[in-house]
């Protein structure tokens, strides 16, 4: 007896697959997954071309500049990196 109260049927029978429309559901499922991801893939492949056309009308620089650029630049450079750059700069000036 399964935990939901129904009887567990250990028949190991091909008929179970036929009764549950297993093959048709599996094939349909795979085809739909492939179709959906193929459409997304085709869209991504076309996206740079679409955006190029779009950019002629509305160049990216004219649009809204997100605020993260400056913050990201600051976050991206660690204290160690700043120290290393400063040291290299110092050596170069001394040379």
């Amino acid at each position, binding site marked *: 007896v*399964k*935990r*939901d109260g*129904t009887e*567990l*049927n*250990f*028949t*190991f*029978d*091909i008929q*179970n*697959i036929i009764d*549950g*429309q*297993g*093959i048709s*559901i*599996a*094939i*349909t*499922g*795979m085809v*739909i*997954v*492939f*179709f*959906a*991801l*193929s*459409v*997304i*893939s*085709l*869209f*991504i*492949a076309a*996206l*740079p071309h679409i*955006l190029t056309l*779009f*950019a002629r009308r509305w160049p*990216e620089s004219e649009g*809204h500049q*997100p*605020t*993260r*650029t400056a*913050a990201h630049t600051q976050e991206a450079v660690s204290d160690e990196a700043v120290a290393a750059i400063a040291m290299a700069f110092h050596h170069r000036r001394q040379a």
Partner: protein
Amino acid sequence: MDIFFEFLQTTGFAQMTIGNLAMVIIGLIFITLAITKDYEPLLLVPIGFGVVVGNIGYVDTMTLGVYDEGSVLYYIYFGVSQGIFPPLIFLGIGAMTDFSTMLSNPKLILLGATAQIGIFLTFIGALYLGFTPEEAGAIGIIGGADGPTAIFLSSKLAPHLLGAIAIAAYSYMALVPVIQPPIMRLLTTREERLIRMAEPRATSQRERIVFPIVAFLIAALIAPGSIALLGMLFFGNLLKESGVTERLANTARTGLIDIVTILLGFSVGASTQAQTFLRPDSLLIFGLGALSFCIATAGGVLGAKFMNLFLKEKINPLVGAAGVSAVPDSARVVQMVGQQEDPQNYLLMHAMAPNVAGVVGSAIGAGILWSVLVK
């Protein structure tokens, strides 16, 4: 004195069964593996401790467990049983995922589809063993190698199997570095493993902003059952890429996902009470789960080999194994196996493309199974 003896009857010692003891040991093994072997510690520690908590015996008149309406654990588990936590986890995943590699090499997305064969072949296998179609669908999704997706679909199709399916899914995800490499080596030649792939191109911010919106529309219109998962995934990614909602993205990928992971892992662990978990069908679910992981890995690798028949610039077939989701572990495994042949071959970035495509693919697969099987 009678009160003392009555109290003794209510202690965990008196209520403990052999099954509870076995589950407590399993929970401790999870915690040990997480701490000593570093196997998915963020998941296995909460799940392992939850297993221990869920298997302390108590008298029936007390409402303590996840299945006892009104208990604290019941309300925490509510987020699992009603499928609330998985979409919130997807929000965090979206906010931390960089789709750039996928955008720079869109053909790799198809590997995220080929790996989903694990879901559907396991579905057939579960039907063969005698599970109902709804149960078979919930078991099959283990092959998607995505814990939140597996929990979400189980809560909708077969809530009584949720504990076993969740534990199987997360256990096999933790074992990705053990399960995948032998299959990857078996199905590829040394020459194939040595293939180097071109550097991915840089993507513009506009591409990264437009992608989550349009990809959601495509996926949701084709498989509306995936709305909750993919809606949150792509919403999280839009928060990240828009550049104007950094605070929200940061919350989603740190505090929010951490809180939900703790609650989900702990309550899923606590749902594995021996009386409901240690049953023959749980063993079958574990067997089918292992099989589905192997099939999914093989499907991804063979899919890459098949694509190579038509491509001028060959794909390293190892990256196909990352199509099983399990972000980012399976991508790391690809990098590891690739570098065992050629230490200078960096496949991680390439593997991330089928890896994130696998997340999308398994969510679409779950949506399809839900749509077809829900009564």
